[in-house]
């Protein structure tokens, strides 16, 4: 049996002896919510799904970022989080990298958009990024839009149902970073539709019939425009 309830910071979710996840504090026997969100108590433990909050980097997350600075040792990347990410030059140029021989801006300039992975993150320094792997690196074209990271699961939908529906109906390729940054590539009218429907999803309050609203907005025609 699963018990669900809306909580705000300071609310007691439940009492007893349970496993518990992020955004929850244990005080004595009480499990206290630390965020505005939807709490769930089941045999799996106590969980809190936050309805608002920043993107907190986790190792292996796929993110989309913007290069905002270059220093001697790599690129500083805005990943829409509490911290800027850092892409070490040695990860890109290899171990022979040296600031004297390699010009970093020849690879990525300030203002470039890149797809990257969180290589490592601990509390003592900024998250390190890596672009090793298929599909990472510079994003050559597209429109960028940001949503609250807490809305990313809704945008993707169960097994991708929502994102696939939007993609089909608008004819756009949509790449969603776990940090809430999204790249949309496609025909201009398709991009405008996609951006507007994503903004609608971002604003929608939890629990509303989202699929229905999105279907209504996008209409019955598939393939864009």
């Amino acid at each position, binding site marked *: 049996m699963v018990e669900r309830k809306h909580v705000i910071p300071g609310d007691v979710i439940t009492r007893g002896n349970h496993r518990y996840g992020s955004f929850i504090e244990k005080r004595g026997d009480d499990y206290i919510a630390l965020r505005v969100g939807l709490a769930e108590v089941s045999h799996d433990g106590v969980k809190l799904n936050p309805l608002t909050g920043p993107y907190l980097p986790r190792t292996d997350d796929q993110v989309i970022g913007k290069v*905002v600075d270059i220093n001697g040792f790599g690129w500083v990347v805005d990943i829409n989080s509490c911290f800027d990410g850092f892409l070490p030059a040695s990860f890109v140029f290899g171990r022979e990298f040296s600031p004297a021989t390699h010009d970093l801006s020849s690879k990525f*300039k300030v*203002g470039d*958009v890149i797809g990257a992975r969180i290589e490592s993150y601990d509390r003592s320094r900024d998250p390190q990024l890596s672009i090793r792997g298929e599909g990472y690196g510079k994003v*050559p074209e*597209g*429109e960028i839009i940001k949503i609250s990271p807490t809305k990313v699961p809704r945008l993707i939908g169960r097994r991708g149902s929502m994102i696939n529906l939007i993609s089909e109906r608008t004819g756009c390729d949509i790449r969603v970073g776990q940090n809430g940054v999204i790249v949309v590539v496609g025909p201009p009218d398709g991009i405008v539709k996609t951006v507007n429907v994503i903004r609608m999803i971002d604003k929608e309050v939890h629990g509303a019939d989202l699929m229905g609203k999105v279907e209504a907005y996008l209409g019955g025609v598939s393939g864009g425009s």
Partner: protein
Amino acid sequence: MSMKKNYVVEIIRKAQMVELLAKGKRLDERTPDQHRPITIQTGVIQKANGSAIVTLGNTEVIAGVKIATGTPFPDTPDKGLLVVNAEILPLASPYAEPGPPSEDAIELARVVDRGIRESEMVDLKKLCIVEGKTVYTVFVDVNIMNVDGNLFDATSYAVVSALRTSKMKKYAVENDKVVMKDQEIPVPVERTPVSVTLARIGDTLVVDPNSEEEGAMDMRITITTDDDGNVCASQKGEASTISPEHVLEAADTAIKVGNEIRAQIVEATK
């Protein structure tokens, strides 16, 4: 308040902006000479003599007018004082910091002030109570609440709307003394200046740039016109050039768009 110029617009988005503009469209579907929706609410701060909250798209500003009496400047003994001040509040943008006004905030205040003053919107002689001794002092303070581009126009519309709906106490001279009467009178407003700001992105002039467009623009020009289609103030901004053709095109656009916005301001402040 200071603004760090840290807003980096993604290169691919700027390229897309320029590509769309070549087809006469902007990212938010406006045409180059279209401004964003404007809303005007007046009388929002009861402790002020007049006030207005203006939204221009997502840019939001609040202006408040405080009127008192004081001594005139020695070189203008028959004129009242009018001071326009603007602050970009730290709550308006992640790039705004608390502290004394930056050069951006000061330029904003002075450009808006110039538009009001040079148009002679308020006849300062009508603010004189006793020549050389007592005049009205009118302070208009604008606080920027949310930055999404074109603070110049939003601030100007807020100042104009607040002044048009401001009331001040009536003063009379009785037995050689200045006496405050119980009556309230409107601030003497003669005309309605309207500021219109254009940005150049690529080769195209666009009216009312939002934050992203400002991040991609090379040059900005603000032109204030009055009810008779006269240009009364202008300011070119950003470290770039503007061609003479564009200056004249901007003036024509400012007159045309200005007239339309003037009608809206007058309607909202009746």
